[in-house]
């Protein structure tokens, strides 16, 4: 890479990469729910941009394009890998400053896993739309632009997502369920102190 033009292209793409790689991976990961796949998808995207750099012009204005491309790449990935995935890994949470009983932590983890599974059961497009809204805080119109669907599609897919998630998670959200580990904890605390 001795050339001026290529050098500045390389510097630009490096900047673009450094500034966006982490959040792109996280966006894609929320949709595909597979961290390694997410990293692959995003890297693949950068390679494509590099190859097309003469048409694209690598600038920071590419940012919007990047997120759009990432959402679509994630969606494609989901559609090509439709098989149900088991979740071997649960994100480690920093619990150093929370003093919670093991059993509660376990419930919490279990519940999070149920949520992940419920999300993964959604049809790919439906999931992508929901994830972009709920996790990325995108407006419906932005989602529509990102995924090249109509606003109406976003609206009804959001409805479908919410309905399916609620149906799936119903056994765990009846209100009391969330409380009873705490009740047990309180009870055991009482018993121990008698």
């Amino acid at each position, binding site marked *: 890479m001795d050339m001026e033009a290529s050098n500045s292209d390389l510097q630009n793409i490096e900047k673009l*990469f450094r500034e966006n790689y982490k959040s792109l*991976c996280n966006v894609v990961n929320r949709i595909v729910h597979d961290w390694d796949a997410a*990293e692959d998808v995003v890297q693949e995207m950068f390679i494509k941009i590099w190859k097309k750099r003469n048409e694209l012009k690598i600038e920071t204005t590419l940012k919007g394009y990047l997120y759009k491309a990432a959402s679509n790449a994630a969606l494609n990935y989901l559609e090509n890998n439709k098989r149900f995935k088991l979740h071997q890994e649960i994100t480690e949470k920093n619990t150093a400053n929370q003093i919670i009983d093991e059993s509660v932590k376990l419930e919490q983890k279990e519940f999070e896993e149920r*949520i992940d599974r419920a999300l993964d059961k959604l049809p790919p497009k439906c999931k992508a739309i929901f994830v972009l809204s709920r996790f990325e805080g995108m407006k419906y119109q932005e989602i529509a632009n990102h995924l090249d669907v109509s606003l109406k599609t976003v609206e009804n897919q959001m409805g479908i997502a919410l309905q399916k*998630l609620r149906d799936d998670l119903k056994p765990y959200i009846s209100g009391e369920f969330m409380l009873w580990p705490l009740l047990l904890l309180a009870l055991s605390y009482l018993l121990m102190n008698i």
Partner: protein
Amino acid sequence: MDAKYWELLAKYFSGEANSEEQKELLGWRSQHAENDKMFKQAEEVWISIKKKEDRNPDIELTWEALKNKMLADEGEAKIISIKSKKTKWYLAAASIIVVLGISLLITQGGYERIATTDNLEVFYLPDSSIIYLNKNSKLKYPKEFGTERIVYLEGEAYFKVKRDTLRPFIIETESTRTKVLGTSFDLKAYEGNEKMQLVVESGEVEFSSKEIESNKVVLHKDEMGVLKHKDNGVMKQKNDDPNFMNWKNDKEELKKTKQYKNEYSSPTTYLYTQYNWKENIIKQTIIEGRLHSAAIFTTYKNVKMRASYYSSHGKKLGEEEFTVNKTVYPGLFVYYKYKLNNWLEDTKEVRVEIVEAKVVEE
């Protein structure tokens, strides 16, 4: 329950519902205890599905791997080539030049000469530029470059010029002068050839006739400079020959070059490392470094390194070997990191050397 209300609920929780929709939803909610229950459940689901903490990818390592991939895909990007045809008159003129060249070599002694017959040669110049010399060609260059990097070519060569804006790179042939500021290219200038051609694949190159000093063209990607006859000027046109550079990609020929054989047989000659080290809180030494490859053709992997550590008196306290399990592409580098198990020692100096490496077979 009607799908319409699910849509409304989703809109409501995501903040997309307008005031009319909000009113409609709240009206629906208060209509029936069942509706209220549904609303609460949906709300709980919405709230429970929280964004997890962002994960942190290894930006440094990923960028390095990505860059390697991007550059490896590049192939050779910048090319210039010059072609010519022989005439008798020119042959005579050329032989005079050759004689002059030799006498220069004798009097100054500061030149290297590389000549090929039916073989190719690939080698580095003193400034780390890389040259591919085609068959029946000669390249003469000073053992050390001064303020200008001037080389003399008869025949054809491909130049991958090290960027150095302060010292322009100049290739003289019998009838042309090519000036580059850092790029790679191929130049054909067979002695006595009448027609000279220069092809640029990318970059910016100034191509001029020696005969008519003021006559120069600036060439860019896919452009060709032509000198039909030394009395004519140089002209610019589109490169119409896609095979112009094919000779330098001839794998079989390249494998016969000294450079290729050396890279293949003694990987450690072409690998070098830069590193620094620090101690962590339990007095272990953490070494962080870059492993560079000066190879032109060969890709290496599984690079075995040896770290030795010394006391303040220079006494060797111990050594450890470790392997960098990364692919080291020709001319590129990788990062590595290693932790020594030397917490019982008072380490004052660390040296890292390369022990061996495997060649990635094509």
